[in-house]
């Protein structure tokens, strides 16, 4: 969540609750909305690392609120995050490990593993189909995220097919 908060603060200083609302507005249902406690914990760490600073703003008949703003070091960290290429998909995932290690265990049959995994991926795809249907057509961010997840699943399935062909 750190880079998200830095990015929002790069736009304008804000207090914790405003950041929570801004995150919800930006991502819609496409990102699980963090609770306010998580946000304050993250802000505390960012402050300790010198990436943000807080000022107390007095409020009449309420406790002071802290408004956070980005420091120069925070700006730099944010730029680094944006500029850095993003990690590609992990191929050496747990399923791959099972597939490699299956013959050594003497119990798991590779074809059975692949078949089970295919069914599992397809049931995830069914969930994504249902989710896409339920998602507000105007929520572009959410729909693009669903589409991305679908394309990843398609690639996983194509790869399973290759495994099945070559290992049979």
């Amino acid at each position, binding site marked *: 969540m750190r880079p998200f908060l830095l990015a929002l603060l790069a736009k304008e200083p804000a207090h914790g609750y405003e950041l929570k609302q801004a995150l919800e507005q930006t991502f819609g249902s496409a990102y699980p909305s963090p609770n306010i406690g998580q946000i304050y914990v993250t802000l505390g760490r960012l402050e300790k690392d010198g990436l943000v600073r807080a000022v107390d703003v007095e409020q009449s008949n309420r406790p002071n609120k802290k408004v956070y703003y980005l420091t120069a070091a925070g700006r730099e960290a944010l730029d680094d995050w944006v500029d850095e290429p993003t990690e590609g998909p992990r191929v050496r995932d747990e399923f791959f490990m099972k597939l490699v290690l299956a013959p050594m265990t003497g119990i798991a049959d590779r074809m059975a593993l692949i078949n089970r995994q295919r069914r599992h991926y397809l049931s995830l795809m069914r969930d994504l189909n249902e989710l896409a249907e339920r998602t507000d057509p105007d929520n572009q961010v959410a729909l693009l995220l669903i589409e991305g997840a*679908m394309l990843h699943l398609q690639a996983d399935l194509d790869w399973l097919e290759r495994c099945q062909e070559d290992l049979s």
Partner: protein
Amino acid sequence: MDTPPVISTVNLVKIYQDGGVPVPAVRGVDLRVEPGEFIAIMGPSGSGKSTLVHMLGGLDTRTSGEIWLDGERADTLGESAWALLRRRKVGFVFQFFNLVANMTVADNVELPALLAGASPREARERREQLLGALGLADRAGAAPAQLAGGEQQRVALARALANRPRLLLADEPTGNLDSRNTRDVLKLLGQVHRDGQTIVLVTHDARVAGLADRVVSLLDGQIVDDGALPASRRRPRGGVGDVVELRG
């Protein structure tokens, strides 16, 4: 008595002859499809998917084994008896569309319903509904050659569904579609399936296969997996984040 399966095959085999060399394409397939089921057939290219669905629709003859449709033996039928059976019971979407070139899109879609005995009004209403659902309402008067590949493919699907067939057979029906058009096809398939349509469909597209009740995987002409899609471990609560998280 129980309703018989819509499809039942017994040790179904197809061996092509390629210049005197036998090419086994389907090697002993036992497949049962119950009324209302949606089956996705998957598998690498050359694994026999097209050959299998062509045999199920009587478009290719079997080498040995049996095919039963709605409890009636079908593999022993001659060509004209098959044509009659198809007209009555089967909608087929070919991988390469097979639309009638000198007829409009509207006529292509209405023809099977008319041949099956629907009134012109019924046929027209059904055609308008299907073309509308597939985003093709404004293409009704066009000739197939004027359409892009993806449009022709959707017309082929509308035609196959026009007379509400007992069985829909489809060979890669979204193979030529971009993702928006695929979404229309997914919606329509989901809808007719909920209305009780039995569907057997060959696909590489995981979004399409994700609609199915059951997936049959072919490899080298044999079924290597046949089973229902499991219920998700966790129902998504409605946020995309849940599903994405569940994948990660």
